[in-house]
């Protein structure tokens, strides 16, 4: 059996896509642990999946309720929602400029 490995280059790409920044210590630890976990994942290849097996999203499929009508309902405490934001202006959630201009 040949194992897939996460390369240092791929690892760095994933860090960027995940919007993370890592210390050197974290980088070394996470890189090694990911490859160890991948070794476990690779054991799944040993299983012969019978033809026609349908992927199971839930195990037991939920006998859930039907989606409600797509009708707008106001949340009763909007000020509490805005108050949770680290920064707000005039009742709106504020963020830094997307491109970097102040």
């Amino acid at each position, binding site marked *: 059996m040949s194992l897939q490995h996460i390369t240092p280059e791929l690892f760095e790409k994933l860090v960027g896509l995940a919007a993370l920044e890592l210390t050197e210590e974290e980088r070394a630890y996470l890189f090694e642990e990911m490859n160890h976990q991948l070794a476990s994942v690779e054991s799944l290849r040993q299983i012969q999946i019978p033809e026609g097996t349908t992927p199971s999203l839930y195990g037991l499929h939920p006998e859930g309720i039907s989606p409600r009508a797509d009708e707008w309902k106001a949340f009763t405490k909007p000020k509490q929602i805005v108050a949770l934001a680290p920064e707000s202006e005039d009742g709106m959630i504020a963020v*830094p400029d997307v491109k970097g201009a102040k």
Partner: protein
Amino acid sequence: MSLTSLSAFEVARKVKAGELKAVDVAEAALAQIRAVDGLPGSLDGGAVSADEEKKVHAFIQVTEKMALEQAEKVDQAVARGEDAGLLAGVPISIKDIFCVEGTTTTAASRMLSNFRPPYTATPVRRLIDQGALILGKVNLDEFTFGSSNESSAYQPATNNPWNTDHVPGGSSGGSAASVAAEEVALSLGTDTGGSIRQPAAFCGVVGLKPTYGRVSRLGLIAFSSSLDCPGPLSRNTRDAALMLQAMAGVDPKDSTSSTRAVDDYLSTLGQDVKGLRIGLSPDYDAVYYPNFETGELHKEAIQKEVHETLYRSAELLAKAGAEIVENVPMPNTAYGIPAYFVISRVEAASNLHRFDGVKYGYRTESAVSNLSELYRLTRAEGFGPQVKLRILMGMYLSAAGHDADYYTHAQKVRALIRQDFVRAFEPDGDHRLDALLTPTTATTSFKRKAVFGNSLLMQYSDQMTVSSNHAGVPALTIPAGLDEAGLPIGIQLIGNDFREDLILRIGHAFEQVSRDEAWRKVRPQVLAGEVKA
């Protein structure tokens, strides 16, 4: 018997009968927390004194005012002759992964250290509506990502009340420890791969993972949405049944909650187990670890005392009239953890994208020049290593081009795991089981720092529990003995879809048939030698 030793069932009965004031119950629970819990978990908690090392540290936040106000309402309802609810005056802790209005809901992460949710999770709301007293929020692995509680950003992490040098398990470690240390009678936990059952087994208490969809997930901060199940931790099966009764049922705000009618778990609890078919499987008698180089699985025996306790428990159930069915094949059990590595990481990465320092939670205090930098610094500072590991792994496994190899493949393995259970429980099948009896964990609780950091070994401590999450079926752990070091051993009963009534009934029968065993007289270290009023 002291107030804090009373079962939830007894507390509610006495409060409703006017024999006991809910306020007195709350005061007793608060006194017990002060006596055994020590410093609450806090960010940058750091090292603690030798004395504090012997404390439980289950709580991040004690909600004294809330509990006393709820107790007064219960007492007033009783005085007016009203029904004060199934859980009248019962002290409960809540894993700090559930939104509770009026509390900070941290997920044991710096990322949510300032989060004050504007609503209360459905299971918590239902407990309160039935007269429960919320004593506080208890510690967990950060965002539930772990099996020892050590990954919490809130330190000191919880210790095992049976031996405070050992971990309580996780991720619902604070829940299990708070129940074992008699700080509360019940706790609300969550189970994604074993996070109720593993800590319950490590701490010598009862833990129930209900059928997926039996209890609403609204207000639970999601880890892996197709696996997460809220459920009770208690000191006996009757209390677990009582708590499930209060929480179960459809929720219009959770489309995955089941519309199926809720059974009366309490009325069937006392029925005997004569003729019930309980299975034992050789596939739960070993742990399968991967070789890092080849990915191939190799087999290791479970702890000898755990194996012996399982078979002794089966004999006791046989004496009670159950029929033991040996050699039930569950051939895909070994693949539960590998499939979990894929499914849970992909779903976790997706759920964690929402934490970005914009709408709520932590935001970096560093000066940033644009939104992208804000995201990166916030997430770098707000998340601990285990969270970052799950995000990165989930992104890798779900990347374009990998889906068929990993996520879809793991979902097919999940289907095979479910088929193992379908075959075992099939009414016209070879085995026709009412329940499968297994160890809850391969070993008893390990020492602090013994496993932490090794994400693979830590995850494999859930090997006995994770398959029922994949399959969606209910599973119950109950204490069944102690090992040579005096640490609790749990056994697990796995049932068919929505047959919580049956596994609770079998668990209750086991409690009756084992009630005079010597190990039941042994108390956790933090309670031994105590003098109570």
